[in-house]
């Protein structure tokens, strides 16, 4: 044993006292732990200790070491950040952090409702509040992230419609598009529908030309990756449904206080990412995906995710919870095993529920209105910088927009590097992914940004591109 020296017991390992170990070994009729490894042949056994740095056994040493490493980061609290593109800087209410860090939630896992009733109720409530935001009756227990949600929603649509092709707008964003292509291959093919160069909205003529009897679904994203609100959604829905296809809508839930939910314009499946609803950016560690539909068995039976439902128990008046339609047998045989759900992001579902309960109906409306006002202000301020153009300025935006700095003679990269030197993360360089947009930068403005922040961005952008 390694614990017979004089070192104090490691705080994470209770059974280290030699007397305890001997008592346990005696009970099981062994003389050493070595005997318990009898099935592992000698030639596979390590003869040397693992080559690891010395342990930091005291908590103080550990904290000092890890915090020293983390101190080399410059966070978005220390700089002025306009980065978005799928991971958003929203205010995280203290209550969200309080609930998501409670050990009772944090250290529970996969018990039945008889041990983990609270988890089931909290996730049922999350789905219920998302259901109100989306005006849909069925919402899943969260999947990994919004990209996964889009890809799965499209696969569901293909199973429901029995067709094999999907149409996706090019304003979906490179990462989401790559995820969809990868996840749908090889059973389904992905065709692209361009966006209108003037408005940034989906090109409806192109959609009508591309849609056909093989089309299982059309994915519309609103606001688009480039920040533009799709306004002709009812026409899109009519076109899609006339072709016998399903409309899948990827939406940002933080915008739904001001934007009509997709169910209201006849979308069949809604999906997206809940990171904006109470999750920190955490270097990309705060994502979780939602999928929502109407309450039709044709749709419900195609979810690969868990669905928690409310039911009665043996006690009158007591709410019980459990998995709805647990045995979903309708997966087409080619799909058997094609989609699985393991441990994903349940804690973020609970946290998003806390967020929606805190915000309430008025909070979500005020959030959306406030972002739209700040973003419009930023569009006007940046659009007024000499040589800087906002290509889709007349379109509606909620929290993101594109600027093209090409007119200044600087590249997007150079402008962003200049801003970085002045303590500003100015946005996401789009010049490689969207060359047609020129030296484009995607700028994100949320409720976190003040007028002074936006003015500073405009002034510094003018300075670095002068």
């Amino acid at each position: 044993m390694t614990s017979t020296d004089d070192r104090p017991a490691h705080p994470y390992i209770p059974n280290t006292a030699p007397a305890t170990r001997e008592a346990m070994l005696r009970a099981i009729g062994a003389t050493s732990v070595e005997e318990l490894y009898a099935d592992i042949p000698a030639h596979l056994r390590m003869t040397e200790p693992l080559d690891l740095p010395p342990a930091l056994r005291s908590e103080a040493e550990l904290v000092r070491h890890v915090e020293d490493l983390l101190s080399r980061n410059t966070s978005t609290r220390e700089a002025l950040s306009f980065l978005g593109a799928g991971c958003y800087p929203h205010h995280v209410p203290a209550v969200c952090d309080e609930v998501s860090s409670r050990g009772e939630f944090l250290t529970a896992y996969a018990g039945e409702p008889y041990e983990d009733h609270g988890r089931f109720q909290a996730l049922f409530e999350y789905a219920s509040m998302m259901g109100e935001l989306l005006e849909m009756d069925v919402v899943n227990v969260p999947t990994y992230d919004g990209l996964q949600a889009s890809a799965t929603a499209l696969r569901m649509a293909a199973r429901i419609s029995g067709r094999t092709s999907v149409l996706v707008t090019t304003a979906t964003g490179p990462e989401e598009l790559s995820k969809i292509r990868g996840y749908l291959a090889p059973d389904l093919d992905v065709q692209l529908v361009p966006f209108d160069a003037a408005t940034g909205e989906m090109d409806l003529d192109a959609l009508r030309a591309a849609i056909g009897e093989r089309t299982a679904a059309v994915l519309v994203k609103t606001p688009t990756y480039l920040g533009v609100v799709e306004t002709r959604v009812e026409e899109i829905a009519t076109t899609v449904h006339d072709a016998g296809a399903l409309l899948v809508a990827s939406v940002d839930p933080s915008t739904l206080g001001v934007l009509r939910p997709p169910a209201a314009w006849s979308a069949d499946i809604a999906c997206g990412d809940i990171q904006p609803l109470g999750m920190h950016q955490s270097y990309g560690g705060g994502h979780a995906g939602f999928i929502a539909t109407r309450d039709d068995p044709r749709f419900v039976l195609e979810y690969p995710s868990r669905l928690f439902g409310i039911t009665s128990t043996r006690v009158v008046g007591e709410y019980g919870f459990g998995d709805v339609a647990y045995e979903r047998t309708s997966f087409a045989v080619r799909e058997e095993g094609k989609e699985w759900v393991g441990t994903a992001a349940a804690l973020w579902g609970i946290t998003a529920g806390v967020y929606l309960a805190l915000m309430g109906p008025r909070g979500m409306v005020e959030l959306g209105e406030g972002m739209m006002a700040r973003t419009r202000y930023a569009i006007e301020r940046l659009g007024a910088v000499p040589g800087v153009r906002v290509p889709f300025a007349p379109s509606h935006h909620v929290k993101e927009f594109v600027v093209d700095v090409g007119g200044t003679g600087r590249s997007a990269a150079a402008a962003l590097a200049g801003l970085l030197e002045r303590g500003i993360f100015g946005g996401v360089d789009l010049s490689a992914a969207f060359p047609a947009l020129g030296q484009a930068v995607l700028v994100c403005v949320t409720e976190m940004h003040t007028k002074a922040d936006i003015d500073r961005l405009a002034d510094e952008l003018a300075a670095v591109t002068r």
Partner: protein
Amino acid sequence: MPAPDRPIRLGLVVNPIAGIGGRVGLKGSDGEEVVLRALALGAAPEAGARTVRALERLDRGTTRLELLVAPGPMGEDAARAAGLAPLVVGELGGDRTTAEDTRRFAAAMAERGVDLLLFTGGDGTAVDVLAAVGDAVPVLGVPAGVKIHSAAFAVSPEAAGTLAAWVARDVAAGARAGFREAEVLDLDEDDYRRGQIVPRLVGYLRVPREPRLVQARKAPSPAGEDAAARAIAADVVEGMEPDRAYVLGPGTTIRAVAERLGVPKTLVGVDVVRDGRLLAADVGEDALLAIVEEGPAALVVTPIGGQGFVFGRGNQQIGPRVLHAVGREHVVVVATPWKLASLAGMPFRVDTGDPRLDARLTGHVLVTTGYGDRAVYRIEA
């Protein structure tokens, strides 16, 4: 589904002499002579006591139960011994109960629309119940016979009672109780007494699925056993070659293959398809041999019963001559993962009647368990 506005109705038929030969080494109770010999050897009927053990598991507190029983030793006695107040259906014909009595009372229960018919006995009793009720009502066997090869029995009397209680609760709650088709096998008792076990697949009874008390986490969307059979069928059909005759053995898993092709299937018999069309239905060994000798052929079989027999049990039509003609490389073995699990580690077995052929068939076999899914499983003779 609303809860029924009536008590839950359970039926009960006991074969009182089931198992009587077992304790005295006679293997079964079919035939009056055996019963008399058993009684002479000092055997005491146990079926009644086992039935009481099952009935004690019924939930009397929370569900309104109505228990319909056959008279006297065929149910009534056990129900009263368990402290229940049964409704007796019909009258006994004479001193000694017969298989005909079992069939008569089972049919009467079915006519009265019981929610579940419990029967106590062995394989022979299951055969009688099948003949009387078919798939008209769900049934569940309380094991009391010497021979329990049929899958229509619970593992113990207590388990049967518990399962019946769950069905009653589900029906009372208006829930959809789950049922599955269970193989009913019978053996020729004369052979059995001589140690030659040759079970015959005689049909299927509808029995309750094990209830789902809790839900296996981390696996949110399991395909059920029916879906697994459909997936297997898709795989098998996709692999079918033109101009090759496919001999479809008995079994529900193989019935799914026929369904996929859109052709009828003789559930307990052997059918042949070619190029997606039915070539011959319910064929015997000679007719089968003629077909497989005429052109390229393949066999699609699934293990029958609880002992994992792939050949020689339930599909005797596919005899050694047929196997020789088709060739081992053209044998497709299919089984759902549930079926493999039910074998609890036992290997597949073969007993074609030709020991040399059996020896050649042993080893490891690829089993189709889903669409694109194979298992490697042992076969022993």
